[in-house]
């Protein structure tokens, strides 16, 4: 069995892929976004529900590979129940890991199951798969936090 392949497809990733957490689209929500990876066609529709600066729920409907599906599942585990600011820091940490070309040592305290994605950073073609739902979550959260500001930015 190939070691490279096992570095990419950690058991944790395959588990999340086969049994994704928090899947499905739920009410209530303050923002919904639809993100697509144009090179491969992977798609995610993602909703966020925030209460008093806290992530109450993240729900999603996604089509895509094991990496993108597992990543969405891990994302929801990590951010649901956290203050938005903390969740954004987790997002930044995950992004740094993915963009680190395999040189960044992941912090298990912060990323929990997310550390399983460290191997993905060595497969340039798959980094976008891992980031799809994270980008969608950030986009949705920013527009839920400050719909007017976000609208201005996008103008």
């Amino acid at each position, binding site marked *: *069995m190939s070691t490279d*392949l096992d570095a*990419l497809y950690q058991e944790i990733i*395959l588990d999340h892929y086969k049994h994704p957490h928090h899947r499905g689209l739920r009410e209530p929500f303050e923002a919904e976004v639809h993100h697509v990876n144009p090179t491969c*066609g*992977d798609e995610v529709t993602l909703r966020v529900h925030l209460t008093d600066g806290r992530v109450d729920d993240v729900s999603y409907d996604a089509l895509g*590979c094991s*990496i993108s*599906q597992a990543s969405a599942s891990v994302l929801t585990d990590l951010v649901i129940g956290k203050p938005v600011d903390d969740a954004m820091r987790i997002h930044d940490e995950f992004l740094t890991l993915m963009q680190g070309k395999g040189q960044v040592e992941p912090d298990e305290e912060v990323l929990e199951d997310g550390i399983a994605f460290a191997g993905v950073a060595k497969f340039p073609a*798959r980094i976008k798969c891992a980031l799809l739902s994270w980008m969608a979550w950030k986009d949705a959260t920013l527009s839920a936090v400050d719909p007017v500001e976000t609208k201005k930015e996008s103008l």
Partner: protein
Amino acid sequence: MDGLLPDLEVVRKDFPILSRALGDGWPLVYLDSANTSQKPQVVIDTMVDHLERHNANIARAMHQLGAEATAAYEEARDKVASFLGAPERDEVVFLKNATEALNLAANTLAWAGDRQVGPGDEVVITEMEHHSNIVPWQLLCERTGATLRWFGITEDGRLDLSSVDELITERTKVVSLVWVSNMLGTINPIGEIARRAHAVGALVVVDASQAAPQLPIDLAAMPDEERPDLLAFTGHKVVGPTGIGVLWGRRAVLDQLPPFLGGGEMIETVTMERSTYAPIPHKFEAGTPPIVEAVGLGAAVDYLSVLGMESVQRHERAITAYALEGLQTVPGLTVLGPLDAAERGGAISFEIPGVHPHDVATVLDSRGIAVRAGHHCAKPAHAHFGVQSSTRMSSYLYTAPAEIDALVEGLEYTRSYFKLD
């Protein structure tokens, strides 16, 4: 196995990349030729020789190197004309790629001229087009007020011709379709459709990006009413370099279309008020063209002609039949598109329930096997079959049966890796 190129082992040695090993020493199994083909040594050497010994700008340099470069570029045009069986060599226009060729057609048809498309007119395409033969026509329709219509696909991946009478009518100004589908592999009856389109006075545009590598093309030998008016293909899929594509067009049609890009080389004379244009093909070749790429393409089509396109087609059919047979031994695997190798090209898209195409491609890649995963720039065709993406293997003249065996074995391994049993 019947139908393989007689000197396949020798042919494979012409392609230096095929001797590469990948990952933990796996020999490269290149099954992504519909994406881009590999290049034989003769194409690489011809391009290097041109750059080392004959480099100059063409048609404007008044020195020996300029003359040599111009001759090499124009000889490449002769070679491509002969490869297509073009009635006239000046009907061959060099562009950047097939996408640019199709955009040239869709843009110049929107502009003032004898062929201008307008409100009330209809443009007919098909659901199995590559995005490059969909989007330019959508843009044309948005800009001109014309209506876009299309042929659907049957369950077994062929064009649904049952609606031909409703689709091709007096209102039809353009019919643009793919000769060989890059996703389904289907070979379309372009002669029959051209005949119908010409009967109502419509212009026929053929995307030959996947046909040119695989089928012998003899435009001059086609009955006039079945011959397309414009035909596009790209150099890099016919063992040539990237950066060079071809638009062939009937002289009468190319003369009627207005220029696409303005600039040097495409003019006859220029004043501050207006310009007159060079005759075809130069009218459509503004600016310094991809010179060494054209020279490389010339060497590429020469290489194919020496092998013989009939032999290449026989080889592709034999390999495709073998691959269709092998793929269907993989439990659960479904092929999208026709199952008869005689009616299709060498691109085979398939699905394995339970494993996403990206994951299939990554596992195969770890064993040195290169395939494509995704929508292959044919999202509508995927949507028709209710799938978001697929895995595609595509063979070419250098593909050996053992490589198909490696693919099938790799797919078995993929199934076990994702614990599908």
